[in-house]
Each structure stands twice: as C-alpha cells, then as structure tokens.
C-alpha cells in the first residue's frame, strides 16, 4: 500500500497530465489551472468537520479510491438507449461526452441560427466569452472539488445565446462513464451564457456503465443576463460504482428566470451543490429536486440562494425517498441580504423513509437581514401511510404494488411539475424503474 494521500495523488498527477489538457494555447487557462491547483493544495479535501460536509464523510469511501486518469477505450450507444428510456432525442440537440471527452459520432448537433452556440467547451477555449466567465462564477477558493475541476477539466457543454435568441429544442447533454478493471475519473466543465432576453432548456444527464469505481466531478457555471430564461434539468443516473460530485452555480441579472430541476437516482455517493445569486431586482429562481436512494446509497443535496437584491422570488421544493439503509441529506440555505427588501422566498423539503434503517438529515437554514420580506419553509419526514397501504391492499392490490403506488403518489409530483413534453415520459420511466428494482 502506498502512503500517498488522495490529495497527493492529484497534486502529483497534474504535472504529468498538464500538457495533455485542452487549452494549451490559452495562456489564461493555463494559469487559471495552476492557480486552482494551488487552491486545492491549500484547501485539501473537505472533512466532516466542515458544516457543509457534516453528513457526508468522504474519508470512508471516495478518498480511499485513487481513481486513475486512464481513458479506457469504450463503445457505447447513446441515442438508442435514450429513446428506450423515453427521451425522443430526434427532438433535441444531443451532445454526448464519454469519459470526459466529447464524442462527435454519438452527438447530433443540429444547425443553429446565428447568435446561438451549442458546442463542446474544449473546442471553444479561445472564445472570449469562455475566458470572461470560466472560474468567475464557480470560485475555487475553499472548494476542493471545484478547484480540482478547474485544474483538470477536459471538456463539457458550452451554450451561448445572444440577446433575444430563443432556442426551442432542448439541449440534451449526456455524460457517459464507462470503465473496465481500472478505476477512472472525469472532470467536466459546463458553461451556459445567456444574453438579455434569451431563452433555452438544458439537460445535463449523467449515466454510468462501469465495472470499477469512478468519479464524475462536474462544475456548471451559468451567467444569466437581464430578462433571460433558463430551464435546467439534471438527471443523475450514475451506476452503483459511481461517485458524483456536482456544482451548479448561477448568477442572475434583473428579471431573469432560472429553473433548476434535479432528479437523482444513481451513484454510490452523490453530492449536488446548487447555488444561485439573485443579483439584480426581479430575478426569480425555482429550484426543485427529487432524490431517490436505496441500499447503501448516499445522496447529499445542498442548495444556496443568495437574495442580494430587492423584489426577487425564490421557490424551492425538494423531495426525497430513502429506502433500505440509504442516507439522504438536504441542506437548503437561503440568505436574504439587507438590501433585498420585498423578497419572497419559499422552501419545502419532504422526505419519505421506506425502512427503519433509512436516514435523512434535513436542514433548512434561513438567514434574513432585510425586514420587509416573505419567507416560509417546511420540512417533513414521514413513513408510508399504513392506513393507505391497507386500503389499497383491501382492494386486491398487492402490498409491494401498493407501496409503489404510494411512493409514486409522493414522488410523482416532482415529475408532474416538469412541463416539458420532451422530458416527462423519460422522467416517469426513471422513477418507475427505480421503484421496480427496489
């Protein structure tokens, strides 16, 4: 056994990898990567002594794995698989990444009108917009995984809309991880830049087909100018060998509308940080999510809404279903700053525990420094309603089936809230198949 720590493993790997990372001709990026590596060195991996990692102790699992930087050969089908899972990809701009690298063959990028860009990030690193935003929204300081991502990212999704542009067909980015006998990792960086009054739907879809443990470390930066609208949806469908660490960080200007919906079903360990800054007046965000965990899964969701300006609204609804010995964490922080008068902030977190061993840590946190605000939050954790279960059984429905009906009655609301006809069938299947094998 080597006595190398996980941190040292990354630090020593960097010098060998550096020359192979994309953006060799962009000096700004090279120095950004070096700076991030230094920040990672300073911060080290988070321990459960940190409030934000209190219920997710990485030293028990993730930090024991020394994921290699090998890129295994892979063959995978994506579009056909997605279709089978209920997503009619003919109707989307499909952007596929396999083990952290863009796959042109598996993607289908439709022609776009002028003023709209949907590309893989590695191919546009000389773009001024990229330079202007990367690392400016998701800061690496004291954030080990963001710092690692900045230092090591290989590719990701880039979407840019110029003023007034509306992209009707959804952008469906799929990130496949697939390995063999070696552990693997990928660091993906997405950047979404929306100019004034532009509008787009973006789907980040993570999935794995792996033999060995793997890490997906993703950072998505979102810049939303005045009056822009982003409907963002993230599907976490990593396989049971997967560790998924994801950050989705948005900056919102006046009157912008950001909807973020998370559907997390996979992964041995999943951590999602979703943050937005309502930076100018009348900005609005809707953060919703459904996390389903069973067996030994651990799913940790952390949200942070920074009400910086007056007259902004935020609505947050997260639901979790925890089965077997799985553990769920929900940490929802809302900060209403002094200047943010007439804030309307609502948060709700509801959890359903299917066994006595299943655990949930739900932690709503409101910090309110303005006086003229409307804030409400509710957190509730319950079990399957035995009365309802018996009622269904007494009509001939088996106990197992009745349980599924009741779980869907609870969780299905999050699927029903999604208006997109492109997404609904697939999300319903996602939840159904989770229940099927549980």
């Amino acid at each position, binding site marked *: 056994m080597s006595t190398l720590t996980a941190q040292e493993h990354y630090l020593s790997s960097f010098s060998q990898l550096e020359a192979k990372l994309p953006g060799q001709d962009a000096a700004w990026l090279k120095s950004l990567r070096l700076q991030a590596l230094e920040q990672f060195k300073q911060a080290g991996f988070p321990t459960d002594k940190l409030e934000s990692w209190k219920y997710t102790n990485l030293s028990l699992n993730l930090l024991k794995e020394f994921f290699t930087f090998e890129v295994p050969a892979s063959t995978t089908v994506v579009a056909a698989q997605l279709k089978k899972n209920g997503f009619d990809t003919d109707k989307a701009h499909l952007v596929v990444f396999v083990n952290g690298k863009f796959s042109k063959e598996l993607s289908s990028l439709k022609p776009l009108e002028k003023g709209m860009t949907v590309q893989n990030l590695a191919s546009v690193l000389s773009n001024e917009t990229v330079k202007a935003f990367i690392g400016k929204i998701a800061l690496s300081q004291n954030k080990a995984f963001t710092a690692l991502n900045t230092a090591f990212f290989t590719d990701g999704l880039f979407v840019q809309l110029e003023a007034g542009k509306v992209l009707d067909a959804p952008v469906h980015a799929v990130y496949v991880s697939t390995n063999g006998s070696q552990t693997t990792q990928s660091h993906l960086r997405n950047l979404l830049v929306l100019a004034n009054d532009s509008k787009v739907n973006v789907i980040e879809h993570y999935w794995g087909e792996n033999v060995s443990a793997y890490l997906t470390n993703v950072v998505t930066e979102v810049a939303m100018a005045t009056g822009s609208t982003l409907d963002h949806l993230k599907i976490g469908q990593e396989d049971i060998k997967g560790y998924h660490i994801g950050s989705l960080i948005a900056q919102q200007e006046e009157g912008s509308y950001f909807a973020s919906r998370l559907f997390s079903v996979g992964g041995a360990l999943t951590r999602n940080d979703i943050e937005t800054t309502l930076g100018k007046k009348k900005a609005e965000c809707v953060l919703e999510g459904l996390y389903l965990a069973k067996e030994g899964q651990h799913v940790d969701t952390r949200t942070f809404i920074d009400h910086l300006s007056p007259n902004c609204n935020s609505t947050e609804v997260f639901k979790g279903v925890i089965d077997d010995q799985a553990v769920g964490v929900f940490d929802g922080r809302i900060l209403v700053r002094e200047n943010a008068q007439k804030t309307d902030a609502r948060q709700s977190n509801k959890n359903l525990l299917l066994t006595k061993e299943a655990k949930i840590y739900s932690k709503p946190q409101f910090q309110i420094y303005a006086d003229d605000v409307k804030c409400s939050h509710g957190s509730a954790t319950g079990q399957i309603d035995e009365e309802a279960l*018996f*009622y269904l059984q*007494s*009509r001939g429905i088996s*106990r197992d*089936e009745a349980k599924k009906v009741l779980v869907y*009655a*609870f969780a299905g609301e999050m699927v029903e809230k999604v208006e997109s006809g492109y997404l609904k069938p697939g999300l319903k299947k996602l939840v159904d198949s989770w229940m099927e094998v549980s």
Partner: protein
Amino acid sequence: MLIIKGLKARVEDKQILNGIDLTINPGEVHAIMGPNGSGKSTLAHVLSGRPGYEITGGEVTLDGKDLLSLSPEDRARAGVFLAFQYPVEIPGVNNTYFLKAALNAIRKSKGEEELDAIDFLELVKAKLKPLKMDELMLQRAVNEGFSGGEKKKNEILQMAVLEPKLGILDETDSGLDIDALKVVADGVNALRGKNRSFLVVTHYQRLLDYIVPDQVHVLAGGKIIKTGGKELALELEEKGYGWLTGEKVKA
C-alpha cells in the same frame, strides 16, 4: 359461504372479540348491530385482514377457504370487500387509476384478462350513474377532499366495480343524509344476488329499512348476544340495547 366459528381477537392487550359464531349463506344479508365499542368494526377489520389485530382463537372460512391465513389482498381476490367506516384519503393517487389497478389485480388473480383503459372507463361510467356520482370524481385523488357522503358512495362504487362475493359494510350509513342513504342502499340492493352475501354493520335501524336483512345479530362485549329477523332491528330501535346487555345503553 362465510363461516365464522369461535372467533376471538385482541388489539394490543385488549380482548375485543370473545368468540363469534356466524354463518352467512350465499345470497343472504346479515346485519350486525350493537352499541358503540362493542367490536363491530373490529369484526369487519379482522375479516378483511387489517394488521394490528391478534387472532386468539377460532376460524373463518369463505367457500371453504381459510381466510385468516390470507393477506388482505388475497382476501380481496378471494371475494371479500370491506366498505370502510372511515375511507382513507390517498393524495396523489388518481381514483380511476386506483380502481383500474384494483380490478385488474383481482382479474389477474383469477386468470382473467386485464381491462384496458377504454373498456375500464366504459365499465366504471356505467356503475357511476345509479350512484348519482359525478364523473369528475374519477379524476380526483382517492377520497381526497371528498365529503362524507361522497366517500361512502365511492366505497359502493368500488364494490360495484370489484363485484365481491362478500360485501362487508361498516357503518356505511353514518354521516349520510336521507337522499344519499337511499342512493347508497339502492346501490347495494342492485348488487344483491344469489351468489353474493352481505354483512351490514350499523348502529341504526334506519339503513335496514332500505337494505332489508335476512338476519339481525346483536353484538355486545365482543359476542353475539341475540339473533333474530329484521323485526329485531325495530325492537332495538325502540328499546335500545340495555334490555339485552343489562346495562343502560341507548341506541
């Protein structure tokens, strides 16, 4: 059809049923009356397999099949239907979906073909009409926000769709006004037939004017203390239960 012999049951440490003997032949309607707390609902629950009761003695068979060893769903599939005294609200579960799932589960267990959405809707609409129920109720969540009367009608609708061998009605009349009571009673009467039996639990004689029983049993202290014809119900209405139990209990 239904044979109950020496049935004893308790909840936690409380003995509630103290040896019930009752035989219901095919096509018969039996009424169970008795003061509050005498064990009527307990009997209905024990027959339908509700968890939380410990059977401490006796046996129950339906067409020769041992009921007590079956799960609630298997009892339903064997033909037992309980119309709940307090129907359960299930938010998030659509009434049509629920009814269709129930019917198809029962059909499947009998080796019959499952009904598709169109055939099912046709069937359920036909059953709604005589109950004077609004079709919109099918689109709502099971019993959620239903009035007391709507809930009871929904129970009868389910019974009409599932066509059980044995219908157990637990105080289906409580909380109904006279018009709703008639509708519900008509719904039950329409289901009467030579191969279907009913156990009608009620606190008041009124329901039995509309659903005329073949036999009336008085349950008190977890035992059947008197059995008679339909006229027994009238006698109870007049005199209360006190003359039977030796206590001053009014109907």
